């Protein structure tokens, strides 16, 4: 088995609410998987199940371990930021580094020091004295300095300004990702991570509505920008979503060959964000 994460028919109920509904997927080693969904879609619940923070039905295996029952073993191999800014506010930066260095066998203090040297974070500062952006920088520096086989990031750049968000993802690719490691990431700002993902998974109402490798998207999805009258002709190919842009029609198709649409207007592969809207708001799949 080469899958790092393997989920089969995973479900999770909160009372009568079905937060995750019969979900199956695999994440292979060395991939960067983006988990994308609206608020309340079940993203965080699914991540929590993967991290062993919550129990679920079905079968879920992470690094060959049962995440809920073998949490301690799992935590040695993976690192995560579940939700932003959960670092204890009373702790000093130096104390935090010392603590993680002592308890985490895979933490590299030298690496964390190197990453922190690029920031303006003072070692004797308490977390509560840092700005929101700095807290996230600190948290990320620690997480990235952990030599983990799987890194799970839940909305890692919330509250950061655009310069730091860009910097973060660049650093993530340059410093952390080496083709051996695997990343599972969720975010609202799809545009920002689109270029670094190798795989994408859409989740809505607890169900997976799309799961594909980024390189397979152009084969399956195409977007046509055209005039109103050409749009009428294009509708015979059953677009999954339609929208208006500057007086033109934009139609999204799934499983329709580009040659069939040739001559009807401009063709291109939809951006993840547009595809996401098309899949979530469009005709039921």
């Amino acid at each position, binding site marked *: 088995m080469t899958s790092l994460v393997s989920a089969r028919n995973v479900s999770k109920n*909160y009372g009568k609410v079905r937060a995750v509904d019969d979900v199956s997927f695999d994440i292979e080693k060395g991939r960067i998987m983006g988990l994308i969904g609206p608020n309340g879609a079940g993203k*965080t*619940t699914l991540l*929590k199940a993967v*991290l062993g*923070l*919550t*129990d679920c039905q079905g079968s879920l295996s992470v690094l060959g371990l049962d995440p809920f029952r073998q*949490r*301690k073993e799992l*935590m*040695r191999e993976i*690192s*995560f*930021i*579940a*939700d932003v800014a*959960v*670092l*204890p*506010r*009373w*702790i*000093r930066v130096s*104390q935090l580094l*010392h*603590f*993680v260095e*002592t*308890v*985490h*066998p895979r933490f590299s203090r030298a690496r964390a020091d190197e990453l922190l040297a690029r920031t303006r974070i003072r070692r004797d500062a308490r977390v509560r004295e840092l700005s929101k952006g700095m807290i996230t920088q600190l*948290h990320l520096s620690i*997480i990235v300095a952990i030599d983990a086989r799987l890194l799970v990031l839940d909305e890692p750049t919330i509250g950061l300004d655009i310069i730091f968000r860009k910097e973060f993802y660049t650093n993530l690719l340059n410093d952390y990702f080496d083709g051996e490691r695997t990343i599972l990431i969720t975010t609202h700002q799809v545009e920002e991570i689109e270029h670094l993902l190798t795989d994408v998974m859409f989740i809505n109402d607890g169900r997976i509505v799309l799961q594909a490798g980024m390189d397979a998207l152009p084969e399956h999805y195409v977007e046509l920008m055209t005039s109103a009258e050409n749009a009428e002709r294009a509708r015979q190919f059953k677009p999954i979503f339609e929208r208006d842009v500057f007086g033109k029609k934009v139609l999204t198709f799934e499983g329709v060959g580009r040659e069939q649409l040739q001559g009807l207007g401009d063709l291109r592969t939809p951006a993840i964000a547009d595809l996401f809207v098309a899949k979530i708001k469009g005709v039921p799949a």
Partner: protein
Amino acid sequence: MIARQAILLRRELWEHRSILVTPAVIALLVSLMAVTGHVVVSTFDQAVDGVILGASVLGESERSGAVGVLMTGISSLFAIAMWILTVFYALDALYTERKDRSILFWRSIPCTDSETVLSKLITAMVVVPLVSFAAIMVTHLVVLSLTSLWIEWRGANAWHLIWSATPFIDNWVATLVVLLALPLWLSPFIGWFLFVSAFTKRSPFLVAFLPIFILPMLEKTLVGSTLLAEALFVRTGQLPLFQGLDTGDLLFYEGEKMAAGQAPTISLLPLLDLSRFFGSPALWLGIAVCGLFVLAAIYVRRYRDDS
């Protein structure tokens, strides 16, 4: 394993600075009281000299007895503060991390819930008493040094009055035993507070203390018996550590002995009866109850889904 537990304990001291600050503040206050006390007393010039002169001719046991009472008084102050500190610490230990959501960070680190909860139990049962003990020793030395300076300034011999006769080691060992025995005896409460701290969604203080008052009342009203009330009364009022007497009788006991013309007790250690303490079934029953609460706290931290 030990290194991990050590860093977890240090972590508790980083977070709960009151464990160090409170004894330090009390030590400072007691020392200041000693200074002001000496200044105030000094205004009764001749009377003071008379008292010092009188003290100088006392026997060794009387002198050491007087110093011992002072030392034990200071220790009691710390012991009371220590227990209040322990209650608030235990109620806070597993509650704040959920409230500020930092539990999500702590759970991303490879420490088990058992290790974490255990570090909090050890902090309440051992670390807090040891810190208090250190503060007590320092305060004793500071207060007695200040008093010595004052006595010397009044022209008497401090070495003779204070230092020569006082059995420091005896007093300190006895104090340490009491400080460590107290949380053991009261461990069911510590376990209960940790458990409340692990499960309650709000106001751990109320959730912890309301049942302690309401359940005995309910028992009296519904069943007519007073078993709970008696159990609580025995637990809070009678530490079975003192030789052949209950804690509450200690003062009378000394009073009677003195009235009988015997020498006052100089040494505290013989008052302590460790075999009676550790032979008491109530102690072990309490420790078992504490253990159950702690297991429950671990279980709740491990398996409850806070989302």
